[in-house]
């Protein structure tokens, strides 16, 4: 994944020999990823698209929860805000870029306005306050019928595959969502690689100590909250492109909690973890539904407990340990 998460460096001679190999591996993986939509069914492509959509939302949540240590139960509100903004824009004939701009701008503004007072709180009080976001957003969406279509939601045609691509809509959407998600992941990775990442780590470990060491605690927490909100806004736009429909269900507390759960299941403070968590969130209910339709909720909960029991550092943490382990075995 990222440079910081790579396992301890192998001996120099080995890594020098391994470097071209690694690049070959990257290219193979990239080609494989790009090829998948060509062979997968439209349903599979939609599932993959949704994983990327929620991956972006979870990535944003990770900045606030995983990096800064501030538990939030409000991420669904930003996802929904982005989706509704995009629906409005597309519904009024705006282009995709303008729609994205509106989604991001709205989510960002709301995030800043909420964050400024909220970051004064610590620990669980902060988490419970963020719970107010979905609590307000759902009734609001139901009431603003002209903008949101009320409880029925809005369906729009966001984008269709241009003729020259020769792609079906599901393939086109997956590529589009994939490219935007990749850009967001790259941006967030770069953002966290520097001072912000260090400041958030300091805040997570000990706020008072961070402040004593000259970290602007409130400002950085507002920043983390805003990044989370912006990612939520982008994810909302992506969601609308993927699903072409939005209703108040997307704003609900349930989804906010599910995203938090997915973050921990995937593994906090990890780009890969955000994607793995999203995959767990999207795929496991399908699987459990197939195993035993009437008990899918119970089986889902048990799956969750099993992951937490055996991999408290999430799927990404487990994967990392597996890689280190195999590398040691191979080296020996």
């Amino acid at each position, binding site marked *: 994944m990222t440079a910081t998460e790579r396992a301890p460096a192998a001996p120099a001679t080995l890594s020098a020999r391994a470097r071209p190999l690694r690049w070959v591996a990257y290219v193979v993986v990239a080609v494989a990823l790009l090829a998948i939509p060509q062979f997968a069914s439209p349903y599979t492509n939609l599932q993959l698209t949704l994983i990327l959509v929620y991956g972006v939302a979870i990535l944003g949540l990770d900045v606030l*929860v*995983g990096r800064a*240590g501030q*538990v939030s139960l409000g991420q669904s509100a930003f996802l929904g805000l982005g989706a509704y903004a995009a629906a409005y824009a597309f519904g009024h004939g705006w282009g995709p870029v303008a729609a994205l701009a509106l989604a991001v701008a709205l989510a960002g503004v709301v995030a800043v306005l909420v964050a400024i*007072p*909220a970051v*004064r*709180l*610590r620990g*669980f*009080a902060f*988490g*419970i*306050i963020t*719970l*107010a976001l979905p*609590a*307000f957003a*759902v*009734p609001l969406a*139901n*009431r603003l019928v002209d903008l949101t279509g009320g409880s029925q939601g809005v369906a729009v045609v966001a984008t269709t595959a241009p003729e020259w691509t020769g792609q079906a809509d599901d393939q086109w959407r997956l590529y589009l969502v994939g490219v935007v998600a990749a850009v967001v992941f790259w941006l967030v990775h770069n953002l966290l690689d520097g001072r912000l990442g260090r400041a958030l780590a300091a805040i997570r470990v*000990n*706020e*008072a*100590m961070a402040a*004593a060491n000259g970290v602007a605690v409130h400002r950085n927490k507002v920043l983390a909250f805003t990044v989370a909100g912006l990612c939520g806004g982008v994810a909302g736009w992506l969601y609308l492109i993927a699903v072409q429909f939005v209703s108040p269900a997307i704003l609900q*507390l349930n989804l906010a*909690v599910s995203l*938090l*759960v997915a973050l*921990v*299941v995937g593994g*906090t403070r990890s780009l890969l973890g955000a994607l793995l968590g999203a995959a767990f969130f999207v795929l496991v209910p399908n699987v459990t539904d197939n195993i035993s339709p*009437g*008990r*899918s*909720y*119970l*089986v*889902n*909960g*048990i799956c*969750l*407990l099993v992951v*937490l*029991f055996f991999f*408290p550092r999430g799927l990404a943490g487990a994967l990392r340990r597996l890689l280190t382990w195999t590398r040691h075995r191979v080296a020996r």
Partner: protein
Amino acid sequence: MIAVQQIVDGITAGSIYAALALALVLVYRSTGLVNFAQGQMAAVSVYIGWSLVETGLPVWLAVVLTLLISLVIGALTERLLIRRFEGQEPLVAIVATVAVLICFNGLINLVWGGSVRAFPSLFPDDVVSFLGARATWGDVGTVAVLVGTVVILQLFFLRTRLGLALRTAADNPSSARLLGLPVGSLLLVGWGLAALLGGLAGCLVAPSVPLQPNMMDTILVYALAAAVLGGLDSPLGAVVAAWLIGIVETVAGANIDVIGSDLRIAVPLALLALILLVRPQGLFGHRDVERL
């Protein structure tokens, strides 16, 4: 005009939030954890109570048995599921309680099915009036049971050896171990008592709502708001905050047209936000002296 009636209704509703909030505070004090499954565990208790009533037991006996079973379920949940996460990153522990919530919800669907059922009244249906307000015996009983519970809890924590042991383990687990206290078993007792209190909240609210697997979800949000508003580690604070929330919610819901039924759940959260911005440590909480 704010009628006495609305205040009475608010206190009744607040008493139910208070019982669940007390459960949250109990768990928070003993494990430093907010148990998001507390409401779902209470719902399990209600369904067990319903089944006991169906067997023909008198309601009150069924409730007492339910509370004892809840105690065992709470203790087992701590020992078998939550123990693994204690001392780990709090975020993982919180998500574990969410997983427990999902499991218990699934369990209710599995055992009792999703169909709506009704729970019998615990109190006579007659109406009493005072100061121009009318209340059912159910309302009076709910408040009385809550007040009685608080008194018993205070006596238990302040006057008994087990209460002192629980306070010791909650205050400083490593010191408690050095004093020879079996901290793990005390956590188990704390979770058991919390589940009992949650079950009580469930049985108090059950007669006036339809039984559904997620019947306690909204009440949990109110209870969370009350617990945080009360300062999270103060039982008395949680009760006062719960009453305040109940009253404000009822009065605002009845007098401010914009609120309506769908925005009512946002009222306690807005109140919480307003108060916490002035007093970040809650109404009765200790301001933690953070050490470097």
